[in-house]
């Protein structure tokens, strides 16, 4: 029945585009309902709903899909971030026909991302990654301005390179295992783990995922794409798309197909540490609100990769918890940047100042998002960063644990600079008549801020309900 998570968004798009009077008006409400239902579905305890069930709909739709704890965390993130992005469309896209198309593309992206989260086959995974990528290209270039087209073009180019590498890796796996099923490839790789062809396939696949994740030094496309995209698209891309297309798939492949080796751990730790530190330093030098958040995203993905690179269950659990936290606080911060841009017509933080009085909700929620991203207790970001640092320390990677802490200090530094320049400091007389952003941007921001505080306070519940059951994905 988990196939519904792909089929419902897909058929919703078809139904919304039927030539029926008034049906277009249902697009926003329908899409919001779908995102809420998806978040609720994650809490369905019925194991039969989530397990592989190829004949749930008779012979018409016989899909091999399955969801474990990791998939459920990702599915919840998809629901949460698409909910926020959908609300953002109401204030940032004024043209109703354009907004309708945008919502349709978000639904297609959701179908693609859900397919990635549920796939148990490496080729199916690739196809659903492509759905996510294609919808992302369209969302980035949506406004057809020169920067948007340039950002989308860079994403297409680098995503194309990643696709070639990934397909070559899949072809090698297929050649060796005679199947594209995770389980079959995993069994074959266990017997031939030193073979040259297998090492080549694994190498190609991992590099492709580094590009998709926007990790340094493969990050060239990411700041341009995030910055140039419409605000609602930035929320979706930064909140969940790159986490799924890169980081989730990397974890899934490592856990279900390849398995960890000392070489893989070393590469992950090196790339993760480089991204966490260098991107944080790059964020310090930015004056564009969204560009700073883009570099912050690269840095946080580096953090997640550090957790994965520890190779332990605790590290993977910390990485998954940080994916969830990152989805919440980065979506929130991009909503804040959209609110500021909508009201001021600018993203240059050097021109801003003292907006806390005029935009209290945006200011308050951005403080919560920034502090959570920097890992300040008791907010949610603190716990995931703590778990990652402990996992690195316990796995014996103590230098990387110190680097992770250093990354957090840098994160706090650039967010303090951002807060001071945008919401505090000397007010700019030019913006003295500015008012708070509309309900469509403040409401999801308040929800996300409440979630960040709640997730921080109820971390033991989240750990018990989802994260600690990660032992099962290793077959333990």
């Amino acid at each position: 029945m988990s196939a519904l998570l792909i089929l419902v968004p897909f058929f919703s798009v078809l139904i919304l585009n039927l030539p029926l009077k008034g049906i277009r008006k249902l697009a926003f409400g329908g899409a919001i309902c779908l995102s809420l239902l998806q978040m609720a579905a994650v809490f369905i305890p019925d194991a039969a709903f989530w397990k592989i069930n190829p004949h749930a709909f008779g012979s018409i739709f016989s899909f091999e899909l399955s969801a474990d704890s990791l998939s459920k965390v990702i599915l919840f993130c998809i629901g949460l971030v698409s909910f926020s992005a959908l609300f953002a469309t109401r204030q940032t896209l004024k043209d109703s026909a354009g907004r309708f198309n945008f919502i349709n593309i978000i639904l297609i992206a959701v179908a693609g991302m859900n397919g990635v989260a549920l796939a148990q086959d490496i080729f199916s995974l690739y196809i659903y990654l492509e759905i996510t990528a294609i919808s992302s290209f369209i969302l980035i270039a949506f406004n057809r301005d020169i920067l948007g087209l340039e950002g989308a073009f860079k994403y297409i180019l680098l995503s194309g390179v990643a696709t070639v590498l990934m397909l070559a890796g899949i072809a090698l796996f297929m050649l060796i295992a005679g199947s594209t099923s995770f389980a079959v490839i995993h069994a074959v790789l266990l017997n031939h783990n030193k073979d040259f062809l297998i090492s080549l396939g694994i190498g190609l696949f991992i590099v492709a995922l580094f590009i998709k994740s926007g990790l340094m030094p493969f990050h060239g496309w990411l700041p341009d794409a995030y910055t140039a995209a419409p605000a609602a698209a930035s929320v979706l891309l930064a909140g969940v798309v790159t986490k799924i297309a890169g980081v989730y798939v990397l974890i899934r492949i490592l856990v279900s197909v390849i398995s960890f080796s000392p070489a893989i751990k070393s590469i992950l730790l090196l790339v993760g540490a480089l991204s966490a530190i260098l991107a944080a330093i790059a964020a310090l030098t930015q004056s564009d609100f969204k560009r700073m958040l883009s570099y912050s995203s690269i840095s946080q993905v580096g953090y997640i990769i550090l957790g994965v690179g520890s190779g332990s269950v605790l590290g993977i659990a910390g990485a998954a918890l940080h994916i969830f936290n990152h989805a919440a606080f980065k979506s929130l911060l991009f909503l804040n940047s959209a609110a500021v841009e909508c009201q001021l017509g600018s993203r240059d933080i050097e021109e801003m100042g003292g907006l806390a009085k005029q935009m209290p909700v945006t200011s308050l929620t951005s403080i919560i998002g920034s502090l959570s991203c920097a890992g300040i207790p008791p907010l949610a970001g603190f716990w995931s960063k703590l778990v990652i640092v402990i996992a690195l320390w316990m796995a014996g990677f103590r230098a990387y644990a110190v680097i992770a802490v250093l990354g957090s200090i840098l994160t706090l530094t650039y967010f303090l600079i951002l807060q001071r320049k945008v919401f505090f400091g000397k007010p700019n007389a030019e913006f003295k008549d500015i008012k708070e952003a509309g309900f469509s941007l403040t409401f999801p921001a308040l929800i996300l801020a409440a979630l960040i505080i709640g997730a921080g306070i109820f971390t033991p519940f989240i750990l018990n309900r989802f994260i600690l059951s990660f032992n099962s994905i290793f077959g333990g």
Partner: protein
Amino acid sequence: MFLDLLSLILLVSAALWTVMTRSLLRSAIGLALTSAVLTVIMFKMEANLAAVFELSVCAGLIPVLFVSVVSLTQPYTHQEILERMKSMFARFRLLPVILIGVGLILVLLGPHSQVQLPLPESGENTRFILWHLRQLDLLGQVIILLGGVFGVAVLFKERKKSA
């Protein structure tokens, strides 16, 4: 061996020409040529079904790409094309040499695999595979097509309106 080598050189040359030429028409012809050579290689490797798919998909894809790109772009003057080709060839002149060098190094010095590779599939069960085993992939491809339709609707149709 000679035919394999010839096919490989033709394939790489056609692919390089496709991405390096500044003329859309020549690029489309290059893509068609690349696809044709790839089809021959697939037939030779007894991957008959993949060869047919490659030929048919590419035959459909080329006119779509061609019409789309032509509708979005303005042609360069002859002088501009010459200048850009010069700079492209200067920038990428080492690429074929590097590719051939890496290939030779891999062939001569590279480690050999111990894995026993399977023989090509006969293709008799194609219908069963497509409609029963790969339904999820077929659905995915339908969604990709739907995404493409929205892409065209958003990026092309509205452009005409604003022009």
